[in-house]
């Protein structure tokens, strides 16, 4: 396997200096590198990753892709991303197992129903495909969901985005890495950024890594859960809190589920991977953490909800659980922004839901880093929104679910 991966991209020795250094070799850092080269002709670019390529949240997420967010700003960026997904296998020349199998978001109480209907209407006005299904229609679309009114949190309906689905996350990372590498980008693994190079006037001039100093014209942070740690080395405070987010898989089962089902209210979301395992995600643990593991009671609660909604799952056995560290913003929306530090740009705060944004975030972040100012899609997600009060509250559509 190591050999196969080595053939996908060149593993580079870091040079002394680059136009752009991207910190973090997850999905976002790699797609940013690719679009810097492809869209802006910037190839003097290095991605530095402290561990192995895409071993962070990119390897740990439940791969749900959708664009049915409430507000115009979010619909625009997530839909841009979904459109990129729809052409991505051709673009990268990689089989990403991208499957638009439809995503159901269940509604369990009157408040849910109202906000779901509102979201369907908002989505349609924004050109995002969205449908409302009655409980009977939910059952027709996904026969194993229990729509009995006797449930503690009965299914009162669901929104459906047919263009939503899943993809194989590690292949997405390898695809971006391979094509970025082909275009001349250096990908450097096992190089942790431990500090920053500042000029005599305090100017940001590069990064200090465990594999030596690297000078950079611009530094682009794409470090997900560790963004605050890096920013604090520069004295920059951000509206981010890092939390554990857990997921799990069952043993391999015969096909029982051919769509994605999510329920914010009872905190469970599930799909069945091609191999046959059920892939399920939980809610975040309440406390701040960098430990990449969470508490078992969170998993227990999630399983209780899953078994009530899908009685057939009672037969499934848990195979393994794991955790990632997600960077949560107060309005459940990302930050794509220049910063008070010249030449420092950040893409973070994607929290529990940034996998679906991998192509779109890389696209707009590359544009910001290349031009030094945000384009239309990124502008609303600047740091300034916390000062001017223009928050993009996506708790309804993002919440804990993806």
């Amino acid at each position, binding site marked *: 396997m190591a050999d196969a991966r080595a053939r996908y991209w060149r593993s580079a020795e870091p040079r002394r200096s680059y136009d752009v250094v991207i910190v973090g070799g997850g999905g976002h850092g790699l797609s940013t590198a690719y679009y810097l080269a492809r869209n802006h002709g910037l190839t003097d670019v290095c991605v530095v990753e402290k561990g192995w390529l895409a071993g962070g949240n990119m390897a740990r997420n439940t791969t749900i892709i959708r664009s049915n967010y409430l507000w115009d700003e979010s619909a625009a960026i997530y839909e841009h991303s979904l459109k990129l997904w729809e052409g991505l296998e051709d673009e990268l020349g990689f089989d990403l197992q991208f499957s638009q199998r439809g995503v159901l978001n269940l509604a369990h109480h009157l408040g849910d129903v109202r906000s779901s209907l509102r979201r369907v209407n908002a989505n349609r006005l924004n050109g995002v495909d969205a449908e409302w299904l009655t409980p009977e229609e939910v059952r027709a679309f996904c026969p194993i969901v229990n729509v009995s009114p006797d449930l503690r949190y009965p299914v009162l309906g669901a929104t459906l985005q047919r263009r939503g689905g899943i993809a194989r996350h590690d292949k997405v990372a390898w695809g971006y890495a391979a094509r970025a590498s082909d275009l001349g980008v250096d990908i450097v693994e096992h190089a942790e950024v431990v500090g920053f190079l500042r000029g005599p006037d305090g100017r940001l001039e590069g990064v200090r890594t465990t594999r030596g100093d690297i000078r950079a014209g611009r530094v682009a942070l794409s470090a997900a859960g*560790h963004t*605050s*740690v890096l920013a*604090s080395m520069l004295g920059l*405070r*951000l*509206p*981010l*809190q*890092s939390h554990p987010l857990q997921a799990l898989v069952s043993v391999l089962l015969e096909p029982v589920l051919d769509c994605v089902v999510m329920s914010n209210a009872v905190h469970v979301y599930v799909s069945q991977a091609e191999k046959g395992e059920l892939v399920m995600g939980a809610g975040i643990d*309440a*406390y*701040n*953490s*960098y*430990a990449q593991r969470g*508490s*078992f*009671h969170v998993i227990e609660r999630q399983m209780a909800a899953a078994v009530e909604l899908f009685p057939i799952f009672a037969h499934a056995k848990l195979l393994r659980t794991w955790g990632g560290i997600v960077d949560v913003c*107060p309005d459940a929306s990302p930050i794509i922004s220049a910063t008070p530090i010249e030449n420092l740009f950040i893409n973070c705060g994607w929290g529990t839901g940034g996998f679906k944004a991998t192509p779109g975030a890389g696209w707009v972040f590359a544009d910001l880093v290349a031009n030094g100012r945000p384009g239309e899609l990124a502008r609303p997600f600047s740091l300034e929104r*916390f*000062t*001017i*009060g223009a928050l993009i509250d996506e708790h309804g559509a993002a919440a804990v679910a993806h």
Partner: protein
Amino acid sequence: MLLIRCPWCGPRDEVEFRYGGQAGISYPSDPDALSDEEWADYLFMRDNPKGEFRERWVHAHGCRRWFNAVRSTVTHEIRATFPIGEEPPA
């Protein structure tokens, strides 16, 4: 699951508590005097250290009192819990 020592009730399971984030963020004494940047700082900016963190918890399903803790965000070990207004043991 964490075992958290409520300063009044003793050690209890984490599920009895709710989390309150960073400790020691007090309401501005003169709110009218704050600039937009200072409001943003008060409302939204938070420390997010990898290491020891001073944070608030409330014993929601117990005595319902708030208290502070010093906990490692790497190991989850809780070094001390203590009433608000007091200092943790060194």
